[in-house]
């Protein structure tokens, strides 16, 4: 098995574990709901006006709701394994349909965030790393510490108050145009970019202190060529690996920021599903967010392998 296949297999296993975990907890939420599940499901199926004892009894008999919890859990997980996520209790739409509807705005937010992180963090880190200990370096360290100490929702609030209320230049909520994307993406991107700058700085400083860098300089390579040939790829590795660790923050941040800025998206949908006790939607959104998390990590694995031939060779053993 090559290194590529092994890392892919690991991630697939992880995705399976996510599904299992989400399924079990969704089942527990379902069981903990107050009231008679049979009545609730019957109401979801036939409408509230048409539910009576007979309809509930039919549902109960059909789904075996009277039985022991273990076979019920088995059926629940079997449904999940076949991708049958059911129907949203609140809107009556199939969960898959709703998820597809919410997926794009979330992906857009994540992509805009990553773009901002690259745009802000990389040049700053590069500049700091080439002159470690300089004024810019110390300034960016202080900035990183301050930004990371602030909880993301507090940062979002500060940005709203600054740019939407005091200087009304950007909308605080809404969705559709680029302007409304900017504040939420900034809320997510600022702390990440500040830390990214530090990670880039470490990586670049390490490369700049290495023997091959000194050799390249000794050969008389001009700065830009030196950076291009010997610097970037070596420095990129720790940065890409770090991105994988930050995927947690990205997914968690999406949930918070979407709720704060009232943007449509998976996180927003999940929080509202919790409000409405909409178990199929809770399960669906958690599942998809978890899958995105694992998928992002798989991409990072692949990028690391593509960047570093040494890792690929490890596979031989």
């Amino acid at each position, binding site marked *: 098995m090559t290194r590529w296949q092994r890392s892919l297999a690991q991630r697939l296993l992880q995705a399976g574990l996510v599904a299992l975990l989400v399924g079990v907890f969704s089942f*527990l939420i379902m069981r903990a709901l107050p009231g008679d599940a049979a009545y609730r499901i019957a109401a979801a199926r036939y409408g509230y006006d048409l539910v009576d004892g007979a309809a509930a009894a039919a549902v109960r008999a059909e789904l075996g709701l009277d039985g022991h919890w273990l076979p019920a859990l088995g059926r629940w997980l079997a449904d999940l394994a076949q991708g049958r996520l059911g129907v949203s209790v609140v809107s009556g739409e199939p969960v898959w349909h709703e998820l597809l509807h919410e997926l794009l705005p979330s992906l857009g937010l994540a992509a805009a965030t990553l773009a901002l992180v690259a745009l802000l963090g990389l040049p700053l880190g590069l500049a700091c790393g080439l002159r470690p200990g300089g004024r810019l370096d110390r300034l960016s360290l202080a900035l990183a510490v301050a930004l*990371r100490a602030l*909880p993301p929702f507090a940062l979002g*609030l500060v940005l709203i108050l600054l740019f939407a209320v005091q200087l009304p230049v950007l909308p605080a909520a809404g969705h559709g145009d680029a302007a409304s994307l900017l504040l939420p993406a900034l809320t997510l991107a600022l702390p990440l970019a500040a830390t990214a700058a530090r990670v880039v700085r470490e990586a670049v400083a390490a490369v700049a202190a290495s023997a091959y860098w000194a050799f390249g300089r000794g050969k008389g390579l001009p700065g830009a060529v030196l950076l291009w040939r010997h610097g970037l790829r070596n420095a990129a590795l720790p940065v890409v690996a770090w991105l994988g660790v930050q*995927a*947690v923050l990205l*997914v*968690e941040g999406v949930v918070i920021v979407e709720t704060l800025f009232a943007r449509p998206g998976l996180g927003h949908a999940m929080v509202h599903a*919790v409000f409405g006790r909409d178990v199929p939607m*809770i399960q669906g959104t958690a599942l998809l967010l978890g899958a995105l998390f694992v998928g992002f990590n798989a991409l990072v694995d692949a990028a690391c392998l593509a960047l570093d031939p040494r890792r690929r060779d490890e596979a031989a053993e």
Partner: protein
Amino acid sequence: MNPADSSQTPGPPHGLSPAPPLAPARACAASGRGLARPLALALLGALALLAVLGPWLSGHDPRVQQLDAVRALPSAAHWLGTDHLGRDQFTRLALALRLSLGLALATVAMAALAGSALGLAAAWRGGWPDRLATTLADAVQALPGLLLVLLVAAISPGDFGPLYAGLALALWVEFFRVVRLMGRGVLQGAPVEAARLLGFGPLAIVRRHLWPELAPVLLTLAAFGAAAAVLALATLGFVGVGLQPPTAELGLMLIELLPYWREAPWLLLPPVSALVLLTAGFMLLARRGHAP
């Protein structure tokens, strides 16, 4: 700040899943800059004192409303003023601190105990207990921490129990991984082999060989975990899926008082600063002075 020391990746993550960079164990034994730890302890001690004694000092009932004195300025009777429902802000702040601190300590204690015990068992026994526990840890870590807490808390929204269980469930993995990894290293080392040959029992090995190595790392992890728990509780409260009003909780107080930020900014300041000071205290405590 000494630029030579700046190689620390600053701060733990915001959400759950604290993943501090794992430095070699011995480097963390000395707490580096000397001042950070006493400062953190003083800060946390002051906050704990406020949390424990605050309601008794102020003498107010946090549930009593004075509707003729809504959003009052700080005064001799109400040290931090009254909130939008005329309740004493100081008492509510103290209770919220009590909740955050209590929850953080309780979840971290639970996570540390369970995670370390499992990690020790996995390191000691190897074989199938090791594989089982590692798979369990992988499963938990495959889901971002805040999502896990949200899922568990959704079993019974607004209740303290599931929130506590969810946080502990998200936090134990870190302890498990570190104890398992470091424990295995120590147990395979020459000193432990010598101790075994001399006939020392497992208890002596844990106390004399494992504990001194693990303790500083566990303390760091615990402090990061506590900061993460405080932030998670506030975040869930702020989003509205954590504890429910009228509980005094930092995130809830923030979202309740936010509409009045222009008329009564002094009401917003105490919960924000309490949150920042609490997390800053735990992070300072966690900070280790490993030289690059």
